[in-house]
């Protein structure tokens, strides 16, 4: 099996509506489909931070939702809460994203509301969002896009639009994959 499966291409591609850290013209875009309650995603969280440090401005990191809500009973509400906070600002979204991965054992609705409040988003907005609305639709759309892109579990990573099936638990080897993707990067002409 090759590390990048050519048959699994990110659909839809990364756009301005995604949550991204790093510049749009970075040489490498790393997309993670993640679930806030998934323990493997919890393991990936500090690894992504280390990759961001290692690659610096060469890397743009994008997070999309892939909650397995039947396996992980808190995952869907956690994703909705992060999207609700994200309406305020990108910084707030990433603050929530980090808070959730740093507190994977405390993801009850009250916990989610508390983390949101600490980022300046009223608890009531988060609670109301659970009932349905644009944040729920966004989470659902992320999930559908993930399935179409060949995501079959979490975390699933895409490197410059192609699914990465190699080892992500070793920072050095993952960083070298990203560095070689940066070298073969061709700037978009459009």
């Amino acid at each position, binding site marked *: 099996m090759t590390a990048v499966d050519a048959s*699994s291409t990110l659909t839809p591609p990364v756009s301005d509506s995604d949550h991204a850290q790093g510049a749009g013209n970075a040489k490498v875009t790393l997309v993670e489909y993640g679930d806030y309650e998934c323990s493997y995603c919890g393991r990936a969280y500090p690894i992504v931070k280390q990759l961001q440090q290692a690659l610096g401005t060469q890397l743009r990191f994008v997070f999309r939702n892939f909650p*397995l809500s039947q396996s992980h009973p808190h995952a869907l509400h956690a994703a909705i809460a992060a999207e609700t906070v994200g309406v305020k600002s990108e910084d707030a979204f990433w603050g929530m994203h980090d808070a959730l991965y740093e507190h994977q054992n405390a993801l009850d609705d009250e916990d989610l509301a508390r983390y949101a409040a600490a980022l300046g988003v009223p608890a009531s907005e988060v609670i109301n969002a659970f009932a349905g609305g644009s944040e729920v639709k966004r989470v659902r759309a992320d999930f*559908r896009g993930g399935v179409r892109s060949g995501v*079959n579990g979490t975390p699933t990573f895409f490197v410059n639009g192609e699914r990465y099936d190699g080892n992500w638990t070793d920072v050095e080897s993952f960083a070298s994959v990203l560095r070689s993707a940066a070298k073969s990067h061709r700037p978009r002409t459009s």
Partner: protein
Amino acid sequence: MAPTNHTKARELLAIGTEAPDFTLNSTPDQKVSLSDFRGRPVVLVFYPADWSPVCGDQVALYNEMLAEFTESNAQLLGISVDGAWCHLAFAKDRRLHFPLLADFEPKGEVSRKYGAYHDDQGESARALFVIDANGIIRWNHLSPDGVNPGADGILRALDALTPEERGSATAGSTS
């Protein structure tokens, strides 16, 4: 995860052939036949074993996608050689909301009919079929046992069905 080197399953039953009917237990006291779903597409998922890590991920994914399958008017059915009591415990533990059928006695008979059985392991292969509303196989896929095939292939196959193959006259009437 590295693909395993078990002997290959026999050739999967080919696209364009009629899907053999079967009747299997879905619970210790309920039986399900393929022909029960005539008039709707069926997604038939053969998998090696309840509880194994890859199977668990695979069925968990499909379980999250029931709304998408329903939009295509399709019914999802899982099949392995595990017994109905095992399926019951697995479905309860994983909160699965689609039938798991027990290809248990005679063991693996239905899996063999579809070319989706590993004789040396005594388990179903990791094989997927999309069967149209008229009972014709329209898509198949065999994965290495250690590889979760995901759902993108299933969704593309369902998208490719004609309205007639989808039985769309009755679309939305079932859930």
